[in-house]
C-alpha cells in the first residue's frame, strides 16, 4: 500500500506555500538567476534593487528563479504586483536598476521600453502577453514549463506544480503500465542518438541481475550547448522525478547523476533537491511504503567531452580514466560495475516526468509520427534572438531560424545551419524547409544531437567551420582507438593546410578517405561522428574547399593567409592612419597622397583595415578573384 496520505499532506503544504506567492500582499520579484542571468549581472541587479527598495521604504518578496530562455534579454526580472498579473522585463542590467525601481515601484507604472510581456495568454490592460512574444509564440514549453517561474530550491514550489504526481501515478499503475505509457508516447532519447526510451528500459528490465543502475547523463559537453544546464538550474526536481520513474520501472536500486563540474550552480541545486527528496521520503529505503528503494548520488565529471559517451561515463564513475569500451555487451546488460545500467539524458528524464504526469495521449499531440514531443535547442550564431528554445519536433528549420530566432543578424544571407554540436553537420540554406526531426536531420548528413543549433551566414567560411569543430573533437578524443586518435589529427592537419592556402586537390580525396575510415572504424560515437562537420561541408560546400585550393580564395574572408590587403587609390586621402598602425611598416605613401601596401612584406594582420576611417574605407581585401570593400559611412554630424 502506498503511503499516499503522507504525500497529500505535502501537497497541501505546497499549495499553501505557492498561495503566498499567488495571493501576495507584497509585490513578488522573480529574478532570472540561472547561470545565463548571472552572467548578465542578475545578482548585481537584484542587490541594487533590494537596497533601493529599502531606501525608499518599499518592500517586496524576492524569488530567484531559473531561465526563461530569452538569452538576448537577460537579466530578466518579473514583477508580480499585489494586484493583477505578473509583468516581465528585460534586460535589466545593474545600470538599469535604479530607473527600474523608480518606474515600477515608486511610480508604480510600467516601464514599456523594457517590457517583454505580461504573464497571460491575451492582451491584459493594454499590455502584450508574453506568450505572443515573437521568440516564444512558436515555442511549446513543456520540458521548460517551470523554468523561470518557480524557485528551483523550493521543494514545495515544484510540488505545487504537479510535482511527483507522475511518480505517484507510476507507483499506482505498476511498472508494466509505465513502460506501456512510455512506449505509447514514442519518446526517444534526447542525448543525440534518438534510441527509443521504452526499448532501452525493457532491455534492462528483462535482465535478472540483483542490482541495476540508472544514470542521468548531465555531462553536457557540446560547445555552446546549455539545454540540460537550464533544466537542472531551473527545475531540478522534474529530472529527479524522471529518475525515480525510470529507476522504479527498470528495477534499479541506485541512481547516479553524472554532471560536469563546470556546472556549479546546477550541481548545487541538484544537491539541494536530492537532500529535499531524502527529507520528504522520496529517496532511500522503501519509498512511500511502496517497497521500492532508490538512492541517488551525484558524480562530478572532470570536463572530458568523451565522458558524455555512455561507456566512457560508466568507466569514469567506476573511478577509471574515462575511455569508452566496445559494445556489445551493451550497458543495459553489463554496465556500471558489470550490472545492467540505463543511461538517460537529462531532457529525456524530464520528458518522462511529463509523460507520466499528463499521460502519453496528451504527449503525442506534439511532434511527428517518428519523432514525438518537443525538443530544446540552444539557438546561437549569426541570429537576432539567441537563446534556449523548445519547439515541437517536425517544424521546419526555417521557422526556427526566422520566426523564433528572428532571422539573421544585420539581415545578411543565411548560409547554413549547423546542428548537433561538434558531431553534427551543416545544413545548407536551400534545405531550410527540412523538418526538424531525427530522421530528416540524419538524412541531410547532420544529427539532432543534444540540441545545438548554430546559424551561419555569408561571413562564415565553411572550411574554417569544419576545421573549428574538428579541432574540438580532435582535442577531446580520448586517445584509445586508432582511427579517432590519429585520423582526426590527420584530418585537422589537412584542413589547417587548406585554410592556410597550402592545400592540394589530392587533399580533398585524402580528407574523404580519412573521414570514412574514422567514421567506420572508430570505437565510440565521438569518433564515429567526428568527421560529420567535414563530410557535410564537403557534401554541400565542396566548391568552397576547391576555391581555397585552386585559387587561394576564401569567399567569406575568414582564412587569414588567403586574404591580401590593398588600398584603393580612388578612396585613399592619405590620412596616414594605416601607415602609422602598420606593425611591420610596409605601407608607403606621402601625406595626402594615396598609400600603397607592399604585398611582398605584408604580414596580413589586417591592422590597416581596422584603422582606416569608415568615412573613407579605402582599405579593401582581396581573396582569389574576390574583392571586398567596406561600406563608406558618412561621418556622424556632431549634435550640439
Amino acid at each position, binding site marked *: 500500500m502506498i503511503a499516499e496520505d503522507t504525500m497529500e499532506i505535502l501537497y497541501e503544504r505546497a499549495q499553501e506555500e505557492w498561495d503566498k506567492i499567488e495571493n501576495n500582499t507584497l509585490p513578488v520579484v522573480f529574478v532570472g538567476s540561472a547561470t545565463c542571468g548571472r552572467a548578465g549581472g542578475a545578482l548585481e541587479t537584484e542587490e541594487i534593487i533590494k537596497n533601493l527598495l529599502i531606501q525608499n521604504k518599499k518592500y517586496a518578496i524576492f524569488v530567484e528563479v531559473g531561465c526563461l530562455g530569452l538569452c538576448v534579454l537577460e537579466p530578466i526580472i518579473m514583477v508580480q504586483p499585489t494586484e493583477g498579473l505578473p509583468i516581465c522585463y528585460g534586460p535589466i542590467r545593474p545600470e538599469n536598476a535604479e530607473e527600474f525601481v523608480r518606474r515600477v515601484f515608486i511610480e508604480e507604472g510600467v516601464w514599456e521600453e523594457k517590457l517583454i510581456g505580461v504573464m497571460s495568454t491575451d492582451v491584459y490592460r493594454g499590455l502584450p502577453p508574453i506568450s505572443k512574444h515573437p521568440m516564444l509564440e512558436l515555442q511549446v514549453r513543456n520540458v521548460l514549463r517551470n523554468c523561470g517561474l518557480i524557485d528551483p530550491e523550493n521543494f514545495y514550489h515544484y510540488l505545487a506544480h504537479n510535482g511527483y504526481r507522475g511518480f505517484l501515478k507510476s507507483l499506482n499503475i505498476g511498472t508494466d503500465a509505465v513502460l506501456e505509457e512510455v512506449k505509447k508516447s514514442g519518446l526517444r532519447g534526447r542525448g543525440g542518438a534518438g534510441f527509443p526510451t521504452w526499448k532501452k528500459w525493457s532491455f534492462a528490465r528483462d535482465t535478472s541481475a540483483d542490482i541495476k543502475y540508472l544514470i542521468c547523463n548531465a555531462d553536457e559537453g557540446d560547445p555552446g550547448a546549455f539545454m540540460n544546464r537550464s533544466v537542472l538550474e531551473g527545475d531540478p526536481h522534474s529530472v529527479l522525478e524522471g529518475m525515480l520513474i525510470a529507476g522504479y520501472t527498470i528495477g534499479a536500486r541506485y541512481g547516479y547523476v553524472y554532471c560536469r563540474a563546470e556546472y556549479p550552480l546546477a550541481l548545487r541545486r541538484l544537491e539541494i533537491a536530492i537532500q529535499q527528496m531524502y527529507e520528504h521520503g522520496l529517496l532511500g529505503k522503501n519509498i512511500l511504503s511502496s517497497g521500492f528503494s532508490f538512492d541517488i548520488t551525484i558524480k562530478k565529471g572532470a570536463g572530458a567531452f568523451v565522458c558524455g559517451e555512455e561507456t566512457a561515463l560508466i568507466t569514469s564513475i567506476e573511478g577509471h*580514466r574515462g575511455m569508452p569500451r566496445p559494445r556489445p555487451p551493451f550497458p543495459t546488460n553489463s554496465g556500471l560495475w558489470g550490472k545492467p545500467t540505463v543511461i538517460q539524458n537529462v531532457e529525456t528524464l524530464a520528458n518522462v516526468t511529463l509523460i507520466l504526469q499528463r499521460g502519453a495521449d496528451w504527449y503525442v499531440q506534439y511532434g511527428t509520427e517518428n519523432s514525438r514531443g518537443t525538443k530544446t535547442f540552444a539557438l546561437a550564431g549569426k541570429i537576432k534572438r539567441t537563446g534556449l528554445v523548445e519547439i515541437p519536433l517536425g517544424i521546419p528549420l526555417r521557422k526556427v531560424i526566422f520566426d523564433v530566432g528572428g532571422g539573421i543578424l544585420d539581415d545578411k544571407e543565411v548560409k547554413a545551419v549547423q546542428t548537433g554540436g561538434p558531431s553534427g553537420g551543416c545544413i545548407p540554406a536551400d534545405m531550410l524547409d527540412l523538418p526538424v526531426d531525427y530522421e530528416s536531420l540524419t538524412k541531410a548528413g547532420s544529427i539532432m544531437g543534444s540540441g545545438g543549433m548554430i546559424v551561419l551566414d555569408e561571413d562564415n567560411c565553411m572550411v574554417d567551420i569544419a576545421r573549428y569543430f574538428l579541432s574540438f573533437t580532435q582535442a*577531446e578524443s*580520448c586517445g584509445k582507438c*586508432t*582511427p579517432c586518435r590519429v585520423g582526426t589529427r590527420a584530418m585537422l592537419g589537412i584542413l589547417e593546410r587548406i585554410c592556410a592556402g597550402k592545400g592540394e586537390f589530392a587533399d580533398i580525396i585524402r580528407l574523404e578517405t580519412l573521414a570514412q575510415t574514422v567514421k567506420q572504424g572508430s570505437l565510440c560515437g565521438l569518433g564515429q561522428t567526428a568527421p560529420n562537420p567535414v563530410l557535410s561541408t564537403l557534401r554541400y560546400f565542396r566548391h568552397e574547399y576547391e576555391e581555397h585550393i585552386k585559387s587561394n580564395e576564401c569567399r567569406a574572408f575568414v582564412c587569414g593567409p588567403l586574404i591580401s590587403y590593398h588600398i584603393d587609390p580612388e578612396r585613399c586621402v592619405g590620412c596616414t592612419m594605416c601607415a602609422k598602425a602598420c606593425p611591420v611598416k610596409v605601407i608607403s605613401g606621402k601625406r595626402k597622397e594615396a598609400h600603397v601596401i607592399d604585398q611582398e612584406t605584408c604580414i596580413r594582420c589586417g591592422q590597416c583595415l581596422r584603422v582606416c576611417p569608415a568615412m573613407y574605407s579605402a582599405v579593401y581585401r582581396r581573396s582569389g578573384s574576390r574583392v571586398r570593400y567596406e561600406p563608406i559611412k558618412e561621418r556622424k554630424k556632431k549634435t550640439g
Partner: protein
Amino acid sequence: MNVVIDGKTVEGRAGETILECALRYGISIPHLCTHPALPPFGACRICIVEVEGMRGYPTSCSTPIAEGMVIRTQTEALRLLRRNILGLMMLEHPSACLVCERRDLCDKYRPKSEKVGATTGCHTCNNKEVCEVRELSADLGLAEIMVAPNYHYKPIERSEPFIDRDLNLCILCGRCVRICKLHQGKSVIDFVHRSSQTHIGQAFGKNLHEAGCTFCGSCIDVCPTGTLSDRYAKWFGRPDRITETTCIYCDEACALAIYAVNNKPVMAKGLYDKWPVCVLGHFAIPEFLNSPQRLRTAQIRVNKVLRPVTTEEATQRCAELLKNHMGKNFAFVCDTSSTLEDRHVFKKFTQEVMQSPYYFEIVPDRKGYARFTNIPEEVKAVITTGSFVPQELRDKFEVVISLDIFPSEWTKTADVVCPVAVFAEVSGTVLDKDNQIRPLIKACNPPGEAMPEWFVVQQIAKIFSPDKWKEYQAVEEITYELGINTAKLNLDRETAPPASQNLKERREWFKGHKIEDYVSGLVAVRNFEEGQDHEEKAEVRLEVKIPENPLPFMVLSRRELVPNTYEFVIHAPAIAKKALPGQFVIVMVDENSERIPYTLSDWDERKGTITLVIQEKGLSSRKMISVNEGECLAHVVGPLGTAFEIKHYGTVAILGGCYGIGAVVRLSRALREQGNKVIMISEARSHYMTYYKKELTAVSNQFIQTTIDASSGEKGHAIDALKRLLQTGEKIDLIVAVGCPFMMMITAEETRNMGIKALCALNPIMLDGTGMCGACRISVGGETKFACVDGPFFDAHLVDWDEVRDRREAYSTEEIQAVSYTMPSTTLEGEHRHHHCSCMERG
C-alpha cells in the same frame, strides 16, 4: 551454439568472442591490441568484422558470439578499412621502412637490427624480428603512408632498471596497461593525457619504482612493438631455442621459458597468464649466467697460486687431496639450490666413497642467504658447492675443494676450484616449497669448462673407487634411481609469487653470492630503494658559458638535429687548420673509450673548430652524444685519411643519407668552388629525419630531398631521384655516395651499368687510423685496402659490399654485451667524465 563465419557453420562456445571462435577454427582475422591473456579492449580496430544485423563494423575481439550470428571476416570493404586504419596507426610509428620498396633487399643485406638509441625505422629496431606490426602490415598490404607521419619527439627512457622505453614507437594498444592491472592489481603505468598526445606513463611523472613497479616485466612480454624492451635481451635478435624450465632462485619454483641464442641465455619470461614472475625470474637469469665473472676453468693451488688446469687434472688433484681425509675427517656442504640429483650424488659420495656421516644440506633463509658455521671439530677436508662457509673458518681445514660459479674469498683460498653449471644450464629436478617435484631442463650451455655439480663429484668418485662407483651416464639415470617418475612444471599456481607483488620479498643471494653483484639492474633497484628515487630525474643540461680560450677538444655546441643524430662543434684548432674535404678524425670520449672515426662535416680555420655529425649506434657513440657542452673529449686525432681530390669533374651528384648528409657539406662546397655543378640529393626515411636542408642548398647548385615515405620531397632513396634525373637527360660525370653501407651498396649496384664513376666513403671498424693495425681492411677490386689511409673514398663499383657488412658485424656480440647493462645514471648521463681535467673547476 552455431555461428556462420565466412559461409562456414561452426560451433561456438558460450561466452567466447568472434575472434576466439574464428581462431579456434583456423579462420584468421588480423588483430593487434588483443592478447590471449588479457580482457578485450577494442582499441586498435584492426580485427573488425561484419556481422549481419549489427550496425557498422564491430571488433571481433570484443563481440561475444550469439546463436545464429552470420559473420564475414574478409570482405573487400573490411580489407580496405583495416589497411586504412593500420595506415593511420603508422602515422604515429616510425613506419617508412614498412612502405620502402627496397624492404626485402634491406632485410637480406642487414638481417640484424642495429644498436641505436632512438629507433627511427625497422632496421634499427630491436623488435624487428618479432614485430607484430611488421607482420600485420605485410598481411594487409600496406604500401603507402597517407599523410606526413607525426613523430612525437619523446626522449627515450633508459634510466629505469631493466626496462627501456621508446614511446615514439608506441601504438597505444594498451596491452602493457592491461597486463599491469591484471598482474599487479594496480596501474603502475596507464594512459596519460588525451587525443594525439596520449601516451603511456606513470602518474605525475614518477619513475617506475616510485609508481610501485615491481619489475615483473610482464609489460615487456606483451608489447607488440619495440616500445618496451628488456635492455639486456633487446639486441640479441630472434631466439633460436626456447626451453620451458623451473626457476630455482627460490622455492616458489615458477615455470619459466628461457630464450637462448647460440646456446646463450638471453631472456626469460614467466609462463603464466594470470601471474607475473618476480624481477629475478624475468631479468636476473641471463645476465647472471652470462656474467663475464663466471668461473670458466678448473684451478688448482700450486705454491700458493691458483693455476688453471683441465677438469681431469682438477678432479685428479681432488682425489689425491681427499685420500688422507676419509671418514669423519671429511664433510660435504651444499645447499638446496643444487638439484635433487646433484644432492643424491653428493650424499652417496660422502657416505659410500668418503664414508663420512658429515653430509650437510643448508636451507637458505628468506633472502636466499645460506651460511654454514657448525662444522664438527674433526673435519679437516671439505667440498663446498657455493661460498657458504665464513672465511674465518678457512684455517680449520687442510683441504678445501670448491665447486662454484663465481670467484669469492672462499674460492680464492681453496685448494681446488671446479667451475660448475647451474640453473638453466643443467637438467634435473627440484623440490618446491610445497614439496612438489619440479623439473629443471637444460636451456643453454654453461660457460667454459663448467660441468654439472653431480658430474664433477662423480669424476672424483670414479678416481677413488673405479670399481665400486656405479657410473651414471646421464642425469636421467639419477632421477630414475631417486624414484621420480613425473615432474611437472608449476603451471597452476593459485597465488602470485610473493616477490612478484612486493619487490622487497625478492631473494638476494644464490649459492653464497650476492645476485646484484652480477645483475646491473638490481643495483639500480637498490639505489632507488635506498632513497635516491626522490631526486630530480630530469636530464641536467647546465647552462654553460664557453670560455674565450676553450680547452683542447672542448665541446662548444651540441644539438640534436633529428632523432638519434647529433651535431657537435669541437674546439680543435690544429685539425681545423690542416683539414681537407673528405678527411676524418678519430675520437676517444674518455681514456677508456673505443677509438671511433667520424667524418669531418665542416671546420672553421679561423675559429679553430671542427663540426661532426654523429649518430648513436652502440656504446661509444652513446658515450659521445652524452657529452655536454663545455666538457672535453679525451682525444681527437686527425685529420686522417686521403682527402677527396678536388678538381673539375663536370656535374657531380652527391648522395647523402643518415649521418652522411652532415658529412658532405664541406665536400660539396669545395667541389662547387672548383666549378663543378653539384647536385645534392639528401635521403631520409621520413620528413622528421631530414636535416641540413638550408646548409646543403647553400653549398650546391641543385638540392633534392627524398624520403622513403614521400612525406617530404620526392619518394624513395637518393638513387631513385638520381635515376629520375638521368631520365630527364641530365648528364652526370661523378657520383659520390656517403651514408650507411646499405645506401652505398644500392647506389653501387644500381649505377653499375651506367658508365658513371661512383665513389663511396667507407667506414669500417678502425683502431689506429694510420694504416698499422689493419682493422679497417677491406677489399676493393680484389685488392686489400686500408680504409684509414687508402680511403675513405673508394670506387663503389669495386667494393666487396658483403665483406664490408660482415666486418662491421665482427664484434656484434661484444657490442651487444657492452650496451646491454643497466647503466647507473651516474656513469653515463650527467656525471662528469674527466676527473683529471681542469674543466671540472669551472664555476
